[in-house]
Protein backbone atom coordinates (compact mmCIF):
# COMPACT_ATOMS: atom_id res chain seq x y z
CA UNK A 1 0.00 0.00 0.00
CA UNK A 2 1.20 3.51 -0.76
CA UNK A 3 2.34 5.52 2.27
CA UNK A 4 -0.07 8.36 1.54
CA UNK A 5 -2.93 5.86 1.52
CA UNK A 6 -1.69 4.44 4.85
CA UNK A 7 -1.72 7.95 6.28
CA UNK A 8 -5.17 8.93 5.06
CA UNK A 9 -7.11 5.73 5.63
CA UNK A 10 -7.16 6.40 9.40
CA UNK A 11 -8.57 9.85 8.81
CA UNK A 12 -11.68 8.82 6.93
CA UNK A 13 -12.08 5.40 5.35
CA UNK A 14 -10.94 3.41 8.39
CA UNK A 15 -11.43 6.12 10.99
CA UNK A 16 -10.92 4.23 14.27
CA UNK A 17 -13.66 6.07 16.17
CA UNK A 18 -16.46 6.83 13.73
CA UNK A 19 -15.95 3.92 11.31
CA UNK A 20 -14.40 1.01 13.16
CA UNK A 21 -16.00 2.04 16.48
CA UNK A 22 -12.84 1.13 18.40
CA UNK A 23 -11.76 2.53 21.75
CA UNK A 24 -15.20 3.84 22.69
CA UNK A 25 -14.51 4.14 26.43
CA UNK A 26 -12.14 7.16 26.28
CA UNK A 27 -14.13 8.68 23.40
CA UNK A 28 -17.35 8.71 25.38
CA UNK A 29 -15.86 9.54 28.76
CA UNK A 30 -13.37 12.30 27.92
CA UNK A 31 -15.17 14.20 25.17
CA UNK A 32 -17.07 16.45 27.60
CA UNK A 33 -14.99 19.44 26.56
CA UNK A 34 -12.80 20.27 23.58
CA UNK A 35 -9.68 20.76 25.73
CA UNK A 36 -10.00 17.36 27.40
CA UNK A 37 -10.71 15.69 24.08
CA UNK A 38 -7.67 17.10 22.32
CA UNK A 39 -5.47 16.22 25.32
CA UNK A 40 -6.67 12.64 25.23
CA UNK A 41 -6.30 12.52 21.45
CA UNK A 42 -2.72 13.77 21.47
CA UNK A 43 -1.73 11.40 24.31
CA UNK A 44 -3.21 8.44 22.39
CA UNK A 45 -1.51 9.62 19.19
CA UNK A 46 1.87 9.69 20.95
CA UNK A 47 1.39 6.20 22.40
CA UNK A 48 0.13 4.83 19.08
CA UNK A 49 3.09 6.13 17.07
CA UNK A 50 5.59 4.93 19.68
CA UNK A 51 3.99 1.50 20.11
CA UNK A 52 3.63 0.93 16.35
CA UNK A 53 7.29 1.85 15.86
CA UNK A 54 8.60 -0.33 18.72
CA UNK A 55 6.51 -3.32 17.74
CA UNK A 56 7.48 -3.10 14.06
CA UNK A 57 11.14 -3.03 15.13
CA UNK A 58 11.00 -6.12 17.35
CA UNK A 59 8.31 -8.08 15.50
CA UNK A 60 10.72 -10.70 14.08
CA UNK A 61 12.29 -11.44 17.46
CA UNK A 62 8.98 -12.18 19.16
CA UNK A 63 7.52 -15.70 18.78
CA UNK A 64 3.85 -15.73 17.80
CA UNK A 65 2.81 -17.57 20.98
CA UNK A 66 3.87 -14.76 23.33
CA UNK A 67 3.23 -11.78 21.06
CA UNK A 68 0.11 -10.55 22.89
CA UNK A 69 1.68 -10.39 26.39
CA UNK A 70 4.84 -8.91 24.90
CA UNK A 71 2.89 -6.22 23.02
CA UNK A 72 0.78 -5.42 26.07
CA UNK A 73 3.91 -5.05 28.19
CA UNK A 74 5.44 -2.66 25.70
CA UNK A 75 2.23 -0.65 25.29
CA UNK A 76 1.74 -0.44 29.07
CA UNK A 77 5.30 0.82 29.54
CA UNK A 78 4.84 3.47 26.86
CA UNK A 79 1.55 4.62 28.36
CA UNK A 80 3.12 4.88 31.82
CA UNK A 81 5.95 6.89 30.27
CA UNK A 82 3.47 9.27 28.60
CA UNK A 83 1.54 9.52 31.89
CA UNK A 84 4.67 10.51 33.82
CA UNK A 85 5.80 12.92 31.11
CA UNK A 86 2.39 14.62 31.12
CA UNK A 87 2.39 14.92 34.90
CA UNK A 88 5.83 16.50 34.72
CA UNK A 89 5.31 18.96 31.89
CA UNK A 90 1.52 19.45 31.54
CA UNK A 91 0.48 19.26 35.17
CA UNK A 92 -2.86 21.07 34.87
CA UNK A 93 -4.01 18.99 31.90
CA UNK A 94 -2.86 15.86 33.69
CA UNK A 95 -5.07 16.82 36.63
CA UNK A 96 -8.18 16.69 34.44
CA UNK A 97 -7.20 13.68 32.34
CA UNK A 98 -5.35 11.83 35.10
CA UNK A 99 -7.82 8.99 35.41
CA UNK A 100 -8.05 8.30 31.68
CA UNK A 101 -4.39 8.24 30.66
CA UNK A 102 -3.64 4.79 32.17
CA UNK A 103 -6.73 3.55 30.34
CA UNK A 104 -4.97 4.11 27.00
CA UNK A 105 -3.36 0.71 27.70
CA UNK A 106 -6.67 -1.02 27.13
CA UNK A 107 -7.69 1.16 24.19
CA UNK A 108 -8.14 -1.48 21.53
CA UNK A 109 -6.98 0.91 18.78
CA UNK A 110 -3.43 0.51 20.09
CA UNK A 111 -3.34 -3.28 20.23
CA UNK A 112 -5.47 -3.44 17.09
CA UNK A 113 -2.92 -1.48 15.07
CA UNK A 114 -0.03 -3.41 16.66
CA UNK A 115 -1.57 -6.71 15.55
CA UNK A 116 -3.18 -5.54 12.36
CA UNK A 117 -0.45 -3.34 10.94
CA UNK A 118 2.83 -2.97 12.85
CA UNK A 119 3.35 -6.74 13.13
CA UNK A 120 3.31 -7.07 9.34
CA UNK A 121 4.90 -3.87 8.06
CA UNK A 122 8.15 -1.92 8.21
CA UNK A 123 8.96 0.45 11.07
CA UNK A 124 8.56 3.53 8.89
CA UNK A 125 5.20 2.48 7.45
CA UNK A 126 4.07 1.67 11.02
CA UNK A 127 4.94 5.17 12.19
CA UNK A 128 2.91 6.59 9.30
CA UNK A 129 0.01 4.28 10.16
CA UNK A 130 0.22 5.33 13.82
CA UNK A 131 0.16 8.98 12.78
CA UNK A 132 -2.84 8.49 10.48
CA UNK A 133 -4.85 6.46 12.98
CA UNK A 134 -3.84 8.75 15.86
CA UNK A 135 -4.84 11.84 13.90
CA UNK A 136 -8.12 10.20 12.93
CA UNK A 137 -8.79 9.45 16.59
CA UNK A 138 -7.76 12.96 17.70
CA UNK A 139 -9.90 14.65 15.05
CA UNK A 140 -13.00 12.60 15.81
CA UNK A 141 -12.75 12.92 19.60
CA UNK A 142 -12.03 16.67 19.33
CA UNK A 143 -15.00 17.19 16.99
CA UNK A 144 -17.15 15.26 19.45
CA UNK A 145 -15.74 17.34 22.33
CA UNK A 146 -16.39 20.64 20.47
CA UNK A 147 -20.00 19.68 19.63
CA UNK A 148 -20.76 18.50 23.17
CA UNK A 149 -19.14 21.53 24.82
CA UNK A 150 -20.90 23.93 22.46
CA UNK A 151 -24.35 22.46 23.03
CA UNK A 152 -23.88 21.56 26.67
CA UNK A 153 -22.00 24.61 27.85
CA UNK A 154 -22.20 27.19 25.05
CA UNK A 155 -18.42 27.31 24.63
CA UNK A 156 -15.55 25.74 22.69
CA UNK A 157 -12.12 25.34 24.33
CA UNK A 158 -13.58 27.20 27.32
CA UNK A 159 -14.34 30.31 25.22
CA UNK A 160 -18.03 31.25 25.52
CA UNK A 161 -19.49 31.55 22.02
CA UNK A 162 -23.25 31.46 22.31
CA UNK A 163 -23.86 34.33 24.72
CA UNK A 164 -26.09 34.55 27.80
CA UNK A 165 -29.36 34.02 25.95
CA UNK A 166 -28.33 30.44 25.12
CA UNK A 167 -29.67 27.87 27.52
CA UNK A 168 -27.16 24.99 27.70
CA UNK A 169 -28.38 21.47 26.98
CA UNK A 170 -26.91 19.85 30.07
CA UNK A 171 -27.66 16.44 28.62
CA UNK A 172 -24.89 16.88 26.06
CA UNK A 173 -22.09 16.99 28.66
CA UNK A 174 -23.57 14.04 30.53
CA UNK A 175 -22.95 10.44 29.40
CA UNK A 176 -26.12 10.11 27.24
CA UNK A 177 -25.02 13.16 25.25
CA UNK A 178 -21.83 11.32 24.31
CA UNK A 179 -23.80 8.47 22.73
CA UNK A 180 -26.22 10.81 20.97
CA UNK A 181 -23.49 13.01 19.52
CA UNK A 182 -21.36 10.01 18.51
CA UNK A 183 -24.31 8.54 16.62
CA UNK A 184 -25.02 11.86 14.91
CA UNK A 185 -21.38 12.25 13.85
CA UNK A 186 -21.14 8.68 12.53
CA UNK A 187 -24.40 9.19 10.62
CA UNK A 188 -23.16 12.52 9.17
CA UNK A 189 -20.00 10.79 8.00
CA UNK A 190 -22.04 8.04 6.36
CA UNK A 191 -24.29 10.64 4.69
CA UNK A 192 -21.28 12.47 3.24
CA UNK A 193 -19.98 9.14 1.92
CA UNK A 194 -23.34 8.37 0.29
CA UNK A 195 -23.41 11.77 -1.36
CA UNK A 196 -19.87 11.21 -2.65
CA UNK A 197 -20.78 7.78 -4.01
CA UNK A 198 -23.90 9.14 -5.69
CA UNK A 199 -21.87 11.88 -7.36
CA UNK A 200 -19.25 9.39 -8.53
CA UNK A 201 -22.06 7.29 -10.01
CA UNK A 202 -23.56 10.26 -11.84
CA UNK A 203 -20.15 11.17 -13.26
CA UNK A 204 -19.55 7.59 -14.45
CA UNK A 205 -23.06 7.47 -15.92
CA UNK A 206 -22.49 10.71 -17.82
CA UNK A 207 -19.19 9.43 -19.15
CA UNK A 208 -20.79 6.24 -20.42
CA UNK A 209 -23.62 8.20 -21.99
CA UNK A 210 -21.14 10.44 -23.80
CA UNK A 211 -19.18 7.43 -25.05
CA UNK A 212 -22.43 5.91 -26.23
CA UNK A 213 -23.45 9.13 -27.96
CA UNK A 214 -20.11 9.23 -29.69
CA UNK A 215 -20.45 5.63 -30.90
CA UNK A 216 -23.95 6.09 -32.27
CA UNK A 217 -23.26 9.54 -33.64
CA UNK A 218 -25.71 11.15 -31.25
CA UNK A 219 -28.67 9.29 -32.66
CA UNK A 220 -31.02 7.82 -30.11
CA UNK A 221 -30.54 4.12 -29.61
CA UNK A 222 -33.50 2.32 -31.06
CA UNK A 223 -35.44 0.61 -28.34
CA UNK A 224 -36.27 -3.03 -28.80
CA UNK A 225 -39.95 -3.64 -29.27
CA UNK A 226 -41.98 -3.76 -26.10
CA UNK A 227 -39.73 -1.30 -24.19
CA UNK A 228 -41.52 1.94 -25.06
Amino acid at each position, binding site marked *: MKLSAVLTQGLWKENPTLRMMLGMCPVLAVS*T*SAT*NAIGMGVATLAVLVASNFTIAL*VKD*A*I*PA*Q*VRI*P*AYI*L*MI*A*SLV*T*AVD*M*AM*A*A*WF*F*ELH*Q*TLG*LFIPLIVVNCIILGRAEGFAAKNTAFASIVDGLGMGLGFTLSITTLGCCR*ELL*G*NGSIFGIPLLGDAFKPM*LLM*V*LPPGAFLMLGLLAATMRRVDMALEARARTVAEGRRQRALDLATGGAPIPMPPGFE
Partner: protein
Amino acid sequence: MVNINRLVLVLLVVAVASAILLAEINTITAPKIQASQTAYKLKAVQKVLPPYDNQPAADRQVIPVTGGGPAEAKVELDEELGKEGVVVYPAYQAGKLVGEAYSVISHQGFSGDIEILLGVSPAGRVTGVEIIAHAETPGLGAKIVSEASWKGKAQVVGRSLSESLVVKKDGGEIDAIAGATISPRAVCGAVKAGLEVYNQAFKDKVPAASPAAPIPTAAAPQGAHS
Protein backbone atom coordinates in the same frame (compact mmCIF):
# COMPACT_ATOMS: atom_id res chain seq x y z
CA MET B 1 7.52 -28.19 18.88
CA VAL B 2 7.43 -24.92 20.75
CA ASN B 3 10.64 -24.01 22.47
CA ILE B 4 9.45 -22.90 25.93
CA ASN B 5 12.85 -21.51 26.84
CA ARG B 6 12.79 -19.09 23.96
CA LEU B 7 9.28 -17.84 24.88
CA VAL B 8 10.31 -17.28 28.49
CA LEU B 9 13.51 -15.57 27.45
CA VAL B 10 11.74 -13.18 25.07
CA LEU B 11 9.15 -12.18 27.67
CA LEU B 12 11.90 -11.73 30.25
CA VAL B 13 13.88 -9.44 27.94
CA VAL B 14 10.79 -7.37 27.14
CA ALA B 15 9.89 -7.07 30.84
CA VAL B 16 13.41 -6.08 31.89
CA ALA B 17 13.70 -3.54 29.06
CA SER B 18 10.33 -2.01 30.04
CA ALA B 19 11.35 -1.82 33.70
CA ILE B 20 14.63 -0.09 32.87
CA LEU B 21 12.89 2.39 30.57
CA LEU B 22 10.29 3.26 33.22
CA ALA B 23 12.90 3.59 35.97
CA GLU B 24 14.89 6.00 33.80
CA ILE B 25 11.85 8.11 32.95
CA ASN B 26 10.79 8.12 36.58
CA THR B 27 14.16 9.53 37.69
CA ILE B 28 13.76 12.33 35.16
CA THR B 29 10.12 13.20 35.85
CA ALA B 30 9.69 12.52 39.60
CA PRO B 31 11.33 15.75 40.82
CA LYS B 32 9.41 17.76 38.20
CA ILE B 33 6.07 16.19 39.23
CA GLN B 34 6.84 16.85 42.90
CA ALA B 35 7.74 20.46 42.11
CA SER B 36 4.56 20.96 40.05
CA GLN B 37 2.41 19.58 42.85
CA THR B 38 4.05 21.77 45.47
CA ALA B 39 3.86 24.83 43.23
CA TYR B 40 0.18 24.15 42.55
CA LYS B 41 -0.59 23.91 46.25
CA LEU B 42 1.48 26.95 47.18
CA LYS B 43 -0.27 29.00 44.50
CA ALA B 44 -3.57 28.05 46.13
CA VAL B 45 -2.16 28.87 49.59
CA GLN B 46 -1.29 32.35 48.36
CA LYS B 47 -4.82 32.81 46.95
CA VAL B 48 -6.75 31.81 50.07
CA LEU B 49 -4.68 33.74 52.63
CA PRO B 50 -4.86 37.48 53.35
CA PRO B 51 -1.73 39.53 52.48
CA TYR B 52 1.29 38.27 54.43
CA ASP B 53 5.03 38.90 54.66
CA ASN B 54 6.31 35.50 55.82
CA GLN B 55 6.81 32.25 53.94
CA PRO B 56 3.83 30.02 54.81
CA ALA B 57 5.53 26.93 53.35
CA ALA B 58 8.62 27.38 55.50
CA ASP B 59 6.56 28.19 58.63
CA ARG B 60 4.11 25.33 58.13
CA GLN B 61 2.95 23.34 61.13
CA VAL B 62 1.73 19.77 61.36
CA ILE B 63 -1.17 19.43 63.80
CA PRO B 64 -2.51 15.99 64.68
CA VAL B 65 -6.31 15.74 64.57
CA THR B 66 -8.81 12.90 64.55
CA GLY B 67 -10.81 12.92 61.34
CA GLY B 68 -13.98 11.17 60.23
CA GLY B 69 -17.38 12.22 58.93
CA PRO B 70 -18.51 13.23 55.46
CA ALA B 71 -15.88 15.97 55.36
CA GLU B 72 -12.62 16.13 57.30
CA ALA B 73 -9.32 17.98 57.48
CA LYS B 74 -6.76 16.19 55.32
CA VAL B 75 -4.30 14.21 57.41
CA GLU B 76 -1.03 13.60 55.58
CA LEU B 77 2.54 12.65 56.34
CA ASP B 78 4.94 15.56 56.04
CA GLU B 79 8.15 13.73 55.17
CA GLU B 80 10.39 16.74 55.64
CA LEU B 81 9.11 17.46 59.15
CA GLY B 82 8.62 13.75 59.86
CA LYS B 83 5.17 14.29 61.38
CA GLU B 84 1.70 13.09 60.51
CA GLY B 85 -1.31 15.36 60.78
CA VAL B 86 -2.97 18.30 59.09
CA VAL B 87 -0.43 20.54 57.38
CA VAL B 88 -1.27 24.15 58.29
CA TYR B 89 0.26 27.06 56.37
CA PRO B 90 0.21 30.17 58.61
CA ALA B 91 0.27 33.72 57.29
CA TYR B 92 1.93 36.48 59.33
CA GLN B 93 1.77 40.17 58.61
CA ALA B 94 4.30 42.27 60.56
CA GLY B 95 4.84 39.33 62.94
CA LYS B 96 1.15 38.89 63.73
CA LEU B 97 -0.89 35.84 62.72
CA VAL B 98 -3.49 36.87 60.12
CA GLY B 99 -4.62 33.55 58.70
CA GLU B 100 -4.07 29.82 58.30
CA ALA B 101 -4.56 27.59 55.27
CA TYR B 102 -5.06 23.82 55.26
CA SER B 103 -6.67 21.10 53.13
CA VAL B 104 -10.14 19.75 53.81
CA ILE B 105 -11.55 16.71 52.00
CA SER B 106 -15.23 16.18 51.30
CA HIS B 107 -16.36 12.63 50.63
CA GLN B 108 -19.67 13.92 49.25
CA GLY B 109 -18.57 14.89 45.73
CA PHE B 110 -20.62 13.72 42.75
CA SER B 111 -17.80 11.44 41.64
CA GLY B 112 -15.10 10.96 44.23
CA ASP B 113 -13.56 13.14 46.91
CA ILE B 114 -13.16 16.90 46.60
CA GLU B 115 -10.09 18.41 48.22
CA ILE B 116 -10.28 22.10 49.02
CA LEU B 117 -7.73 24.45 50.51
CA LEU B 118 -9.40 26.60 53.14
CA GLY B 119 -8.05 29.90 54.43
CA VAL B 120 -9.25 30.94 57.90
CA SER B 121 -8.59 34.11 59.87
CA PRO B 122 -7.78 33.96 63.63
CA ALA B 123 -11.39 35.10 64.25
CA GLY B 124 -12.57 31.91 62.55
CA ARG B 125 -13.76 33.54 59.33
CA VAL B 126 -13.16 32.14 55.84
CA THR B 127 -10.50 34.14 53.99
CA GLY B 128 -10.60 32.07 50.81
CA VAL B 129 -11.38 28.70 49.22
CA GLU B 130 -9.55 26.95 46.38
CA ILE B 131 -10.35 23.56 44.87
CA ILE B 132 -7.18 21.44 44.88
CA ALA B 133 -8.43 18.11 43.52
CA HIS B 134 -11.77 16.82 42.32
CA ALA B 135 -13.29 14.41 39.81
CA GLU B 136 -16.57 16.25 39.16
CA THR B 137 -18.24 16.21 35.74
CA PRO B 138 -16.40 18.58 33.40
CA GLY B 139 -18.70 21.40 32.34
CA LEU B 140 -21.05 20.77 35.27
CA GLY B 141 -19.85 20.06 38.80
CA ALA B 142 -16.34 21.02 37.73
CA LYS B 143 -17.55 24.65 37.60
CA ILE B 144 -16.82 24.84 41.35
CA VAL B 145 -13.16 25.51 40.55
CA SER B 146 -13.67 29.05 39.32
CA GLU B 147 -15.44 32.09 40.72
CA ALA B 148 -16.57 33.02 37.21
CA SER B 149 -18.65 29.86 36.91
CA TRP B 150 -19.66 29.46 40.57
CA LYS B 151 -20.56 32.62 42.48
CA GLY B 152 -20.78 30.67 45.72
CA LYS B 153 -17.01 30.36 45.85
CA ALA B 154 -16.76 34.08 46.60
CA GLN B 155 -19.91 34.09 48.75
CA VAL B 156 -18.44 31.83 51.45
CA VAL B 157 -15.53 34.22 51.98
CA GLY B 158 -15.93 36.26 55.17
CA ARG B 159 -18.36 33.83 56.75
CA SER B 160 -17.90 32.10 60.09
CA LEU B 161 -19.67 29.11 61.61
CA SER B 162 -22.44 31.36 62.97
CA GLU B 163 -23.46 32.33 59.42
CA SER B 164 -25.10 30.28 56.71
CA LEU B 165 -22.78 27.89 54.88
CA VAL B 166 -25.55 26.05 53.08
CA VAL B 167 -26.62 26.24 49.42
CA LYS B 168 -29.86 28.07 48.58
CA LYS B 169 -31.53 24.86 47.49
CA ASP B 170 -31.17 23.54 51.06
CA GLY B 171 -32.52 26.81 52.50
CA GLY B 172 -29.16 28.56 52.89
CA GLU B 173 -27.58 31.65 51.34
CA ILE B 174 -24.92 30.25 48.99
CA ASP B 175 -25.61 30.07 45.25
CA ALA B 176 -25.47 26.58 43.75
CA ILE B 177 -24.84 25.64 40.10
CA ALA B 178 -27.84 24.97 37.86
CA GLY B 179 -27.98 21.24 37.21
CA ALA B 180 -25.19 20.44 39.65
CA THR B 181 -26.14 21.08 43.26
CA ILE B 182 -24.16 18.19 44.69
CA SER B 183 -20.70 19.65 44.03
CA PRO B 184 -21.30 23.10 45.62
CA ARG B 185 -23.07 21.38 48.50
CA ALA B 186 -19.99 19.21 49.06
CA VAL B 187 -17.70 22.25 49.01
CA CYS B 188 -19.93 24.09 51.50
CA GLY B 189 -19.88 21.00 53.71
CA ALA B 190 -16.09 20.91 53.53
CA VAL B 191 -15.85 24.61 54.46
CA LYS B 192 -18.12 24.03 57.44
CA ALA B 193 -16.19 20.96 58.58
CA GLY B 194 -12.93 22.87 58.11
CA LEU B 195 -14.12 25.70 60.34
CA GLU B 196 -15.26 23.22 62.98
CA VAL B 197 -11.85 21.56 62.98
CA TYR B 198 -10.30 25.02 63.27
CA ASN B 199 -12.31 25.85 66.39
CA GLN B 200 -11.71 22.47 67.97
CA ALA B 201 -8.12 21.71 67.14
CA PHE B 202 -6.22 24.52 65.44
CA LYS B 203 -7.10 27.57 67.48
CA ASP B 204 -4.06 28.60 69.57
CA LYS B 205 -1.98 25.70 68.17
CA VAL B 206 -0.22 27.93 65.67
CA PRO B 207 1.96 30.63 67.28
CA ALA B 208 0.14 33.96 67.25
CA ALA B 209 3.42 35.76 66.59
CA SER B 210 5.78 34.95 63.76
CA PRO B 211 8.39 32.37 64.83
CA ALA B 212 11.00 34.03 62.64
CA ALA B 213 11.80 37.72 62.63
CA PRO B 214 9.60 39.49 60.08
CA ILE B 215 11.32 39.62 56.72
CA PRO B 216 11.85 43.18 55.49
CA THR B 217 9.16 43.90 52.92
CA ALA B 218 11.66 45.27 50.41
CA ALA B 219 13.51 41.96 50.25
CA ALA B 220 10.43 39.80 50.08
CA PRO B 221 7.38 41.49 48.58
CA GLN B 222 4.00 40.30 49.77
CA GLY B 223 3.19 36.83 48.61
CA ALA B 224 6.20 36.66 46.31
CA HIS B 225 7.42 33.30 47.60
CA SER B 226 7.76 30.42 45.26
